[in-house]
């Protein structure tokens, strides 16, 4: 059944890519010519793509496809494309409007388990359900996943809705789901003992609750039968002015197969907040991170921001070449990395079909100077490994990021 499903998924991905290529027009695509290399027989490689996303409004967002099945079933299955690959969150979350399956919801003594996921820009409300999940050839059985915007749970508690904008539709969320594969097992370190307004038990009303660890949504990689110690994102380099799309690989496991061996890369452990120390423009920024889910390179600077509606991004008069050093929690340094900051308005206006922008940089409010957030552009032209906490590889012990 597994090879069959893998075949189906590969076909689905190919069709999906073909459709995207047709829709993308002739804008100077970043896809390299020639057919992609054949996947290894062991199928720990999922195809990933940076494109405009299902909302049509994404830039620098990386997507893959995931197959979900009702637990135990080999027929009640669905392959969902445009699941965002996010090293800055943990767990698989699916948007109910694209889900055709009815997945069984986890229940506590006091009611159904429903989550208020607080992504910074809004909240997503929906139950935690079980699914057999397959990505490439890797399978996680009875995996807790969140179903965002599930029509069975429409009443959002005030404490959840009061946190911001509701993002329970594909257009509001910007993806058909999100695959959180950061360097930890869980997004919440202590939700089994403390309520953070995250988990609710919903009977006649919804009440905040603690949740046993086994019922929380884990980083799916950690629940694969094999290749479960981390993952590698491998993306080609892209021209300075960008590209329509960019395709690459999401490889599961580190040092578990011939295609995911560690080499001579720099291994930076992250702290318990999944953060690193970055030194930029003479400042030491202790709450910094590398994040495939951030769509630009974000930092505080005197570079002028763009006018609305692009005020999040920088619009320098000419391209700025800047320098950055990164220090891991293990003391290891990656020194003098350079990056360019282009004029966001110009790059977005000049190539309106493009969705890949390696020189797109964004603002952080002045006063919040402790952070440098290096988004998906960091991954362009690199092979970046993310090792999950507690896992030993040939070059270190997770949580780490290596490149």
């Amino acid at each position, binding site marked *: 059944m597994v090879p069959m499903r893998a075949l189906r998924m590969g076909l689905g991905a190919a069709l999906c890519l073909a459709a995207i290529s047709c829709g993308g027009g002739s804008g100077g695509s970043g896809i390299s010519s020639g057919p992609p290399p054949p996947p290894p027989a062991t199928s720990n490689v999922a195809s990933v793509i940076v494109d405009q996303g299902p909302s049509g409004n994404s830039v620098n967002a990386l997507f893959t496809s995931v197959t979900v099945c009702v637990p135990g079933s080999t027929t009640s299955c669905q392959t969902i494309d445009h699941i965002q690959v996010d090293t800055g969150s943990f767990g698989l979350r699916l948007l109910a409007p694209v889900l055709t399956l009815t997945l069984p919801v986890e229940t506590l003594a006091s009611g159904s388990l429903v989550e208020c996921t607080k992504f910074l820009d809004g909240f997503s409300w929906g139950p935690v359900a079980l699914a057999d999940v397959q990505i490439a050839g890797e399978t996680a059985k009875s995996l807790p996943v969140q179903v965002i915007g599930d029509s069975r749970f429409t009443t959002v508690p005030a404490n959840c809705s009061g946190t911001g904008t509701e993002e329970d539709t594909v257009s509001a969320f910007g993806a058909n789901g999100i695959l959180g594969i950061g360097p930890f097992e869980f*997004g919440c370190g202590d939700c089994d003992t403390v309520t953070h307004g995250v988990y609710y038990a919903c009977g006649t009303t919804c009440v905040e609750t603690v949740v046993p660890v086994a019922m929380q949504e884990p980083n799916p990689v950690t629940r694969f039968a094999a290749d479960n110690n981390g993952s590698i994102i491998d993306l080609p380099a892209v021209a300075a002015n960008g590209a329509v799309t960019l395709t690459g690989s999401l490889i599961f496991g580190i040092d578990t197969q011939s295609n995911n061996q560690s080499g001579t890369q720099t291994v930076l452990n992250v702290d318990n907040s999944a953060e690193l120390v970055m030194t930029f423009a003479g400042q030491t920024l202790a709450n910094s991170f590398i994040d495939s889910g951030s769509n630009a390179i974000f930092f505080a600077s005197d570079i002028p921001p763009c006018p609305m509606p692009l005020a999040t991004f920088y619009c320098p008069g000419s391209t700025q070449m800047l320098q950055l050093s990164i220090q891991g929690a293990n003391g290891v340094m990656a020194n003098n990395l350079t990056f360019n900051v282009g004029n966001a308005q110009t790059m977005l206006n000049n190539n309106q079909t493009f969705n890949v922008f390696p020189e797109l940089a964004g603002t952080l409010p002045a006063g919040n100077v402790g952070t440098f957030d290096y988004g998906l552009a960091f991954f362009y032209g690199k092979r970046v490994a993310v090792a999950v906490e507690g896992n030993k590889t040939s070059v270190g012990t997770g949580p780490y990021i290596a490149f």
Partner: protein
Amino acid sequence: MPIFKPGEIKITALLCAVLMTALGPRIANATLGEPEVTVQSDVAQLRASIESSEDRVGYRIHEIQLPDGTLLREFVAPDGNVFAVAWNGPTQPNLRQALGKYFDAMISAPKPKFADHRHLQIQQGDLVVQARGHMRAAFTGRAYLASAIPSGVNLGDLH
């Protein structure tokens, strides 16, 4: 000022407790765009346990600690109105109370072009909301009324 680490929050909480005792009934809590009046019910609404206030040059800060460890600061102008609120903590706090009538403006604002899930930048009329954060780390943000910032107050101080 850097992000508050848990240890610092504890120290702040202690200081707050001391200040609360010292300042007694002077303590007030208010909502963005509204007068600085003593609204004890706000603290109850937010289930906050610690509160303090501090006078700075040109404005006053009220500090409220929410049960999950989030620190909420409200900035009061000399005219007696709250012109900014800022927050820092393990999750995005319930902003409906702190933003008051501006909360609806925040959530009805058009989604910024090319948004992601780590950053928020809203400018809706006079209201500006900026925030950032990610799982396992601090969520930091602020909301202010651009026209209500007292002269001499630096945007960089509103955190």
